[in-house]
């Protein structure tokens, strides 16, 4: 059958529309990431090789340093770990992924557009799968923009970081965000309620962060820190150790589990009621 392109819109599939709808938001989040990276890079010269700063940091309590990921603060990787990857960058990515993931199907149900979408011959599973894929691509683009800025602009402020540690940290942050976004998608797909999906996922995210960060301080938490996806992503310190295949595999499996749960849950429900 004959089709004709209309304008420049890329609207061939639910996947394309989902990205198309979020194009401005994705540009905004990417610029936010660029701004975060640029700010941190701009501040780096004041700590780099600054002995007073080193002494000050050394004088902090071990607990403080452990919780905030502060080690080797005046070196490039140590600075990035403390200022970018221990909290801020993953937090922003998680917020993006959870807001978006919770909206993917539950938003269509709450706004009522699910009716007109389901008027098309598209299976529920395909809707969820394509929306999940759009989420994954969007998160990857925003995460990548952070890595690119650091890799490109870092040397200009004498911030040198190896390819492995940098991209291992970026990938870990991105997969962590995708995992929580997929959890929010699954909860939204299972209930049709965006607020609930966001609330529960936010609690999971906070618990995961605290478990991973406190495990360095609280001895009885250490044996259970593997329960925290934050631990598998950033608790294992990719900035020092590079890619950690086992831990990444755990995260990928969890992402897959959430995506499958979303597919199954959405397939077995009354929509938009």
């Amino acid at each position, binding site marked *: 059958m004959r*089709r004709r392109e209309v*304008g420049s819109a890329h609207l061939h599939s639910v996947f394309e529309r989902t990205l198309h709808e979020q194009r401005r938001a994705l540009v905004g989040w990417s610029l936010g990431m660029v701004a975060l990276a640029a700010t941190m890079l701009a501040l780096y010269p004041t700590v780099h090789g600054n002995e007073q700063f080193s002494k000050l940091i050394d004088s902090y309590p071990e607990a403080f340093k452990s919780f905030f990921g502060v080690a080797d603060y005046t070196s490039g990787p140590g600075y990035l770990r403390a200022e970018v990857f221990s909290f801020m960058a993953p937090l922003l990515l998680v917020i993006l992924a959870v807001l978006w993931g919770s909206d993917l199907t539950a938003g269509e149900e709450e706004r009522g557009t699910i009716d007109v979408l*389901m008027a*098309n011959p598209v299976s529920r599973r395909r809707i969820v799968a394509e929306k999940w894929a759009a989420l994954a691509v969007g998160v990857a683009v925003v995460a990548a923009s952070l890595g690119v800025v650091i890799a490109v602009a870092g040397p200009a402020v004498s911030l040198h970081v190896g390819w492995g540690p940098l991209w291992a940290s970026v990938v870990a942050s991105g997969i962590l965000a995708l995992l929580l976004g997929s959890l929010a998608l699954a909860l939204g797909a299972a209930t049709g309620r965006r607020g609930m999906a966001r609330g529960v996922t936010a609690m999971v995210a906070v618990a995961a962060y605290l478990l991973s960060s406190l495990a360095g301080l609280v001895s009885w938490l250490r044996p259970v820190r593997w329960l925290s996806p934050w631990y598998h992503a950033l608790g294992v310190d990719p900035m020092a150790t590079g890619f950690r295949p086992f831990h990444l595999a755990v995260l990928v499996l969890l992402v897959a589990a959430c995506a499958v749960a979303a597919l199954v849950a959405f397939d077995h429900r009354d929509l938009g009621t």
Partner: protein
Amino acid sequence: MGSLDSDRGIPDRPAIVLDDVSKRYRGGGGVDGVTLDVWPGEVFGFLGPNGAGKTTTIRLLLDLIRPDRGTITVLGLDTRRDSVAARRRIGYLPGELALYDRMTARELLTHFAYLRGGPTWEEIGRLASQFSLELDRPIRELSKGNRQKVGLVQALMGRPDVLVLDEPTSGLDPLVQHQVHRAIRDVAADGRTVFLSSHVLPEVAQVADRVGLIRDGRVIAVERVQDLRGHAAHIVDARFAAPLADDAFGDLPGVDGRRVAGDTVHLEVTGPLAPVVRELGRFDVVDLSVREPDLEELFLAFYEGADATA
């Protein structure tokens, strides 16, 4: 039943079959034991007050919600098991129409055309100009009537075999309503099937061949429109200068229902009006109205008729 008199002869199977379909909600509402056949070439009007179960039935047809009991087939396809195949044959206009507000109508219709792999832009453009639809403004800037037109165009495009319309003319001005009714008749004349819901009788009376009455989730009657109207063609209300005798207007032909209260009389007339008018002439009429019955009166007339034959 159906368009038995059409040139195509007797269709061999119904286009839509609901077989003992029930769907109950915890908070109340839903439908109970709905059984219906709708035939190709037929416009079936689903008539009932708001909250009676019309939208529930339609959303069951689209596999948006699943029945507790019973099965639904569209063109022989089980709407649960063959959901995608069934929906490929259906054009659907939701009752509470929500669209992707930030898209233009052109973008939305293009997107849906791709998802369906069917309609060409030539066809969409033709429908859009038929309804004089503005294509290039964001949908959020369109009036309710224009949004409804977007919904109608997406339902009609691709010439679906079965058209399911939930309150299709709500929010439309009379001129556009007329266009919609004509489009519906065209679809049926084409041998395709239309299932439309409405809470207003005149709309159904105008376009439908048969009508199903639904109340409190139960289909209480399925009638040819002309038969249904036969139950009460006119309502006559009159007031007189003096109180009436209890048996006034008692023996008139074609009067189905009669209520005398003091100096007023309420008549449901199925036959010719002439005898009623002659009888009225014998009294000192102060006030008089003759009108077509509204939905509620139609229901009442129908029940009374059913009671009388029972």
